[in-house]
C-alpha cells in the first residue's frame, strides 16, 4: 500500500531553518571539503549546524572532521553525535571502513531511512555533502526535502563546468533554489566560469585557489581554516 517513511521526513526537518546541499555534477571537485568547511564556519559564527554525509559509496567528511569513536544515540530515533560542534550524521556509523556497494534504488532507500529516523535538534543550517552526479541523491533531495537549496561546486575545467551547467539548468527548470556557484581548485586568472555563471542568472559565490596544503589539514578541523578552502569558505559563510 505505502512506504510509511517518506511522509515523516518533512516533520523530521521541520526544525531546520535551511537545508543546503553541496553538490556537483562532477566528482573530485572538493564538495566534501567545502561542505565541511561551510558547516564549521557557520557553527563558528554561532549558528546551530548539522552536517549530513550523503555520499554513501565514498563518504569522506568523517575523515575531514577526524570523527573517531562516535555513534548516534538511540532514543525514539537516531540522535546524531556532536563532532567539532556539528550534529554529524553519516552512513559510516553503520558501514564502518568497508565498501557500501549500493545501486540507485538502494541508495534511495538508505537515504529515505536515514532522513526518516534521524532526529535533528533545532538547527539554523543542515549542510548536506551530496554524492557527485545528477542522479538519485539529487532527485531524492528535491522530492523529499521541502526546503532544499543547492550550493554547486565546480572546477575551472570545462569537463566539470559543462556538466555543472546542465545541473544548473535542471535545477532552474525544477524551480529549486540555487545559493550559487563555488569555483574550486583555481590555478589561473581566467574568469570564464564566473561570466558564464552570471549569464545564467546564478550568483557566483567565490573562487578558491588550488592549495595542496589542504591534505595536511584532513582530520584536523581547526587546521582547515589555515588553508585556502577554509579561509574562502569562512568568508562565504558570512554572506549566507
Amino acid at each position, binding site marked *: *500500500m505505502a*512506504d510509511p*517513511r517518506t511522509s515523516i521526513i518533512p516533520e523530521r526537518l521541520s526544525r531546520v531553518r535551511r537545508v543546503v546541499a553541496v553538490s556537483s555534477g562532477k566528482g573530485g571537485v572538493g564538495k566534501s571539503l567545502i561542505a565541511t568547511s561551510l558547516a564549521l564556519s557557520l557553527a563558528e559564527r554561532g549558528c546551530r549546524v548539522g552536517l549530513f554525509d550523503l555520499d554513501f559509496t565514498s563518504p569522506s567528511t568523517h575523515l575531514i572532521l577526524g570523527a573517531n569513536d562516535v555513534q548516534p544515540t*538511540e532514543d525514539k530515533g537516531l540522535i546524531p553525535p556532536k563532532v567539532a560542534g556539528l550534529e554529524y550524521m553519516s552512513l559510516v556509523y553503520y558501514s564502518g571502513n568497508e565498501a557500501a556497494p549500493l545501486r540507485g534504488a538502494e541508495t534511495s532507500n*538508505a537515504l529515505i*531511512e536515514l532522513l*526518516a529516523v534521524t532526529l535533528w535538534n533545532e538547527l539554523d543550517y543542515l549542510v548536506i555533502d551530496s554524492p557527485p552526479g545528477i542522479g538519485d541523491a539529487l532527485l531524492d533531495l528535491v522530492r523529499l526535502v521541502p526546503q532544499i537549496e543547492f550550493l554547486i561546486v565546480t572546477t575551472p575545467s570545462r569537463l566539470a563546468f559543462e556538466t555543472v551547467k546542465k545541473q544548473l539548468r535542471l535545477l532552474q527548470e525544477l524551480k529549486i533554489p540555487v545559493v550559487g556557484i563555488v569555483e574550486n581548485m583555481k590555478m589561473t586568472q581566467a574568469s570564464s566560469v564566473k561570466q558564464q555563471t552570471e549569464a545564467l542568472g546564478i550568483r557566483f559565490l567565490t573562487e578558491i585557489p588550488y592549495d595542496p596544503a589542504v591534505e595536511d589539514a584532513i582530520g584536523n578541523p581547526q587546521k582547515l581554516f589555515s588553508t585556502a578552502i577554509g579561509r574562502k569558505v569562512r568568508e562565504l559563510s558570512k554572506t549566507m
Partner: protein
Amino acid sequence: MHEWALAEAVIKTSIEIAEKEGLAQVTEVTVKIGNLQQVERPILRFALSQLRPSRFKDAKFRIFTAKTTLKCRVCGNTWVFNKNSLDKETVEAIHFVPEVAHTYIKCPKCGSPDFEIEQGRGIWLETIKGVK
C-alpha cells in the same frame, strides 16, 4: 527505540491515507516488517499504541514479519536471509540501515555483494480498514 521513529511514520502515513479515503474511524492497520531489519515487534506495537490519535482509538494493529529473500544479480542465486550467520554488531547496523547488508553479506554461491533484496527489507504499510 528506533522503532518509535518508524511507528511515528506509520501513524503519520495512516492518518494521511485515512483522510484521503474519508475514514472517520480506523479499525485496522496492517504493517509488514521485513526480517532483514529485525524490528522489535513488541516495541513497535507499544509505540503504535502510544502514538495513536483519537481516530485510531479502536484500531487493531496487525504486525507480521516477512521473510527476506535475496537474489544475486551476478549468478542468479536466491537465498533466505538468516541473522544467525552474522555477529551482533552487524545485525544492529543492518537494523538501522538495511542497505548496509550489501557491506556485510555476500552471495553464498559466488561471493558477490551485488544482490537484490527481493522481499522483506523493512517496514511497509500493508492495509488500512475503517468506517466512513
